[in-house]
């Protein structure tokens, strides 16, 4: 973990020029870094190497890993469609440990508390480091400087970009699918344990050298729809149980009961109403999280009252969004991630509920993406500073606890609103400088708190439109001062010098580095 080679990026953050022995580019500003070269390609396969009857089934995951040529130092990917109900990642590394393979790089689309099982493999050297969102126990482990390599955190779009650009070369991808045929066509819809979309696995199926589909429901060819195309798949493994769909519903996918959060959600919706964002044919995205879900609910009330409808909503689909689709308040749900079982069912039966992927929605090294087209996006943050920079990866105490998800990618929508409480259990959300920058302030337009709404001075249009409303418009500095007046000025967390993680921007440059917390 060399920390000698640091460089100041465009946001004034000191970031490493090399991570895990790979040269890095510091963040240069929004849209400033232009990639060169060609999209990564895997070796050309030949049909002659695959069974002529199309049956790619092998008996066990371990056997598939061996056939895929697993060896020391490889990159192994899995996905979080089952969220905390994922069973596959833990089994894969159990197998790798049994095979005595070392120094693997785990490249998940996100990690969850269930993956604390893997800490033993970080300890014994089976896994060298993790590149992916760090949720819960793994985040704390990383922050305490215990992981051998440096964690690399990317957004969902950034993950697709990294794979497509060849920044991360996946050796073996394992895709947990609810339903598959033995040719490898697969979906998350028609099995006994359904996760809905399989969008996060798209890049892996296209670019990984070896692709293993794991399912508990094998159907006769063809498995329709083929969210994953068997033509990209090497092996198919049938297991007893592929995932726990009930665990998809996490605490962050239910509407809030808190009167304070409901007030923030109501203010957010009202802001969108008075500034004309909610109009016939508009589009929106509300992320996971109780407050964001409540915002959708208030949007629905306004739309009903005004007799207007949205052209599309981007999800994270969930019960509330599905009800809006059924009621005719939105024409389409463009779904990147299914957050509950109502979403899974709707994706299966409603033709206007469409599965998307990080390629279509979020990839910054494409020819545009859907996130850019959204009128308003509602996101969360652990901290926001007086320059509107925001943090989603670490807490104010400096510990990595959350994934970036699609958050960075969504910042490119036309209006970005962060509804947040001014403080949480004495911890101010509005601060002078965020602990970790995950998104630059120039892309964050509005911060809605229970004690006032701050509009980014760059958005003179919104400031003008909100001027004559009865909404409590304040400056971001005023909000930060009020947070400090109530909570007291907090001491800054103490860090050691060594870097434990880096945060990638959507273009693969490094926007910030996270250092080991100093508990002494």
């Amino acid at each position, binding site marked *: 973990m060399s920390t000698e080679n640091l460089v100041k990026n465009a946001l004034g953050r000191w970031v490493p020029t090399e991570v895990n022995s790979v040269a890095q580019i510091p963040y240069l500003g929004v849209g400033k870094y232009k990639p060169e070269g060609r999209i990564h390609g895997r070796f050309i396969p030949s049909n002659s190497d695959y069974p002529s009857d199309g049956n790619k089934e092998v008996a066990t995951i371990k056997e598939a890993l061996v056939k895929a040529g697993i060896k020391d130092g490889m990159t192994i990917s899995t996905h979080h469609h089952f969220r905390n109900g994922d069973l596959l990642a833990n089994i894969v590394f159990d197998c790798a440990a049994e095979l005595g393979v070392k120094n693997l790089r785990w490249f998940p689309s996100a990690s969850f508390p269930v993956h604390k099982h893997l800490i033993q493999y970080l300890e014994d050297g089976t896994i060298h480091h993790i590149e992916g969102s760090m949720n819960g126990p793994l985040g704390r482990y990383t922050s305490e400087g215990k992981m051998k390599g440096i964690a690399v955190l990317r957004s969902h779009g950034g993950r697709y970009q990294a794979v497509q650009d060849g920044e991360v070369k996946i050796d073996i991808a394992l895709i947990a699918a609810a339903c598959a045929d033995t040719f490898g066509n697969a979906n998350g819809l028609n099995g006994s344990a359904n996760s809905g979309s399989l969008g996060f696995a798209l890049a892996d199926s296209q670019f990984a050298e070896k692709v293993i589909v794991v399912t508990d429901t094998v159907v006769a060819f063809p498995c329709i729809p083929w969210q994953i195309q068997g033509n990209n798949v090497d092996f198919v493994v049938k297991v007893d149980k592929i995932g726990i769909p009930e665990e998809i519903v996490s605490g962050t996918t239910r509407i809030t009961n808190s009167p304070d959060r409901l007030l923030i959600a109501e203010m957010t919706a009202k802001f969108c109403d008075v500034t004309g964002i909610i109009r016939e044919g508009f589009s929106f995205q509300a992320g996971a999280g109780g407050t964001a879900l409540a915002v959708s609910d208030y949007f629905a009330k306004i739309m009903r009252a005004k007799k207007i409808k949205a052209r599309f909503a981007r999800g994270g689909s969930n019960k509330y969004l599905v009800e809006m689709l059924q009621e005719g308040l939105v024409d389409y749900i463009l779904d990147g991630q299914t957050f509950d079982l109502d979403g899974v069912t709707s994706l299966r039966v409603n033709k206007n509920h469409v599965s998307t992927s990080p390629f279509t929605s979020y990839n910054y090294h494409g020819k545009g993406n859907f996130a850019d087209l959204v009128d308003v996006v509602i996101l969360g943050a652990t901290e926001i500073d007086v320059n509107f920079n925001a943090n989603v990866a670490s807490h104010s*105490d400096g510990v990595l606890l959350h994934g970036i998800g699609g958050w960075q990618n969504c910042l490119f929508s036309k209006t970005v609103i962060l509804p947040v409480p001014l403080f949480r259990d*004495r911890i101010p959300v509005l601060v002078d400088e965020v602990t970790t920058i995950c998104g630059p302030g120039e892309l964050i337009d509005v911060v809605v708190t*229970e004690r006032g709404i701050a509009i980014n001075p760059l958005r003179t249009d919104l400031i003008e439109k909100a001027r004559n409303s009865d909404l409590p418009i304040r400056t971001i500095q005023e909000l930060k001062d009020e947070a400090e007046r*109530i909570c007291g000025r907090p001491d800054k967390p103490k860090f050691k010098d060594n870097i434990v993680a880096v945060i990638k921007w959507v273009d693969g440059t490094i926007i910030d580095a996270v250092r080991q*917390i100093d508990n002494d």
Partner: protein
Amino acid sequence: MEENTKISVAGNKGDKTRSDCQITLELKSTGGLQVEVVSKVKSMYGKSIERLCIKGLQFFDIEHAHVLVEDFGALDFVIMARLEYAIKQLKSSNKEFLPEKSGSILINTTKSLYRFTRLYLPGNSPSYMLNAGIHKPDGVILDLEDSVAPTKKAEARYLVRNALRAVDFYGAERMVRINQGAMGVEDLAYIIPHHVNLILVPKCESADTIRQLDVAINKLKRETETDNITYFMPIIESALGVENAFSIATSSENIVALALGLEDFTADLGVKRTQEGTESLYARTRLVNACKAAGIQAIDSVFSNVANLDALAANVRTSKGLGFEGMGCIHPRQIPVIKKEFAPDAEEIEKAKQIVIAYREAIKKGLGVVSLGSKMIDAPVVKRAEKTIQLAEKLNLIPSDWEIKINS
């Protein structure tokens, strides 16, 4: 207090505890002052909590002690209240470890201020207090009575006192519901010097109760050189209280309203409290009549089904129809509903505007009779219309220059 008691505990802890702390204090004979902080926010506030505790111990001239602070994001005013109560269990003192008075505690209040909504806040639960003001109730009620467990009564007084000094309720009238009887009189010392605007007197049955409190309050005010007015809102919660409503309503010039408490009232009658409220119709109309005769406000009982906001709205409409001018709230989400229903609606305002304009025209023209279209309008109707207009102006439902705007 037993002689060998050297350990005391104050405050709350547990998984669900928010914005609070529990303090365990042990007085010692040697070793100086030791503070141990266990907190999720230790890296941010650990040092400041430690400094605050040392300051408090020194304030009470304690030289040797061990303090354990199990903290769940408590603000300074909460930690101070918990520490003071922990100390006072072991060491008697007349000194008070008070937080600085916030600039927000002085608010403009008058007898005739509208009191549509008053949000009840359990007096020993700081987490509800911090954000109470953002929901814009007309008043907040820091409750020392029914929402505080008997074993927590003493420590709640320190917390309520400190909250009155430190918490910004964003302009809401600052009210305290004291305990019944002698305990309620004792409560006064903790609140009167700290800019409380109104005292709710529970289970009030006679004018004497108010007179006694009035005497005690005036004495406290002289002693502490407190000069703000403290209003009374007696709560009528029994058959006897209902019978004595008018004499209670006129027992002090500082009485601004009578409130009704139907849970206890129906229990006193020995009947079930129903949604329709037929069983309490007499009490409600009797109370409204007493209030109107005394020139004060009549406030209705709280609506306990917090999940059903539609039923609440219907309940408020009935209440308004009977002559009530406000209702207690036990959940912040009830506030906008109650406010909206008590406020005059667009139709009422429009009609009132026309009547007021017709009246003013008639005066200008020196006409003895006011008419609107082909209809004659009586003086009381004009008076009611003027009241509606005043209310609408106050609630910002119409601009104060509405008349000019209509004529131009």
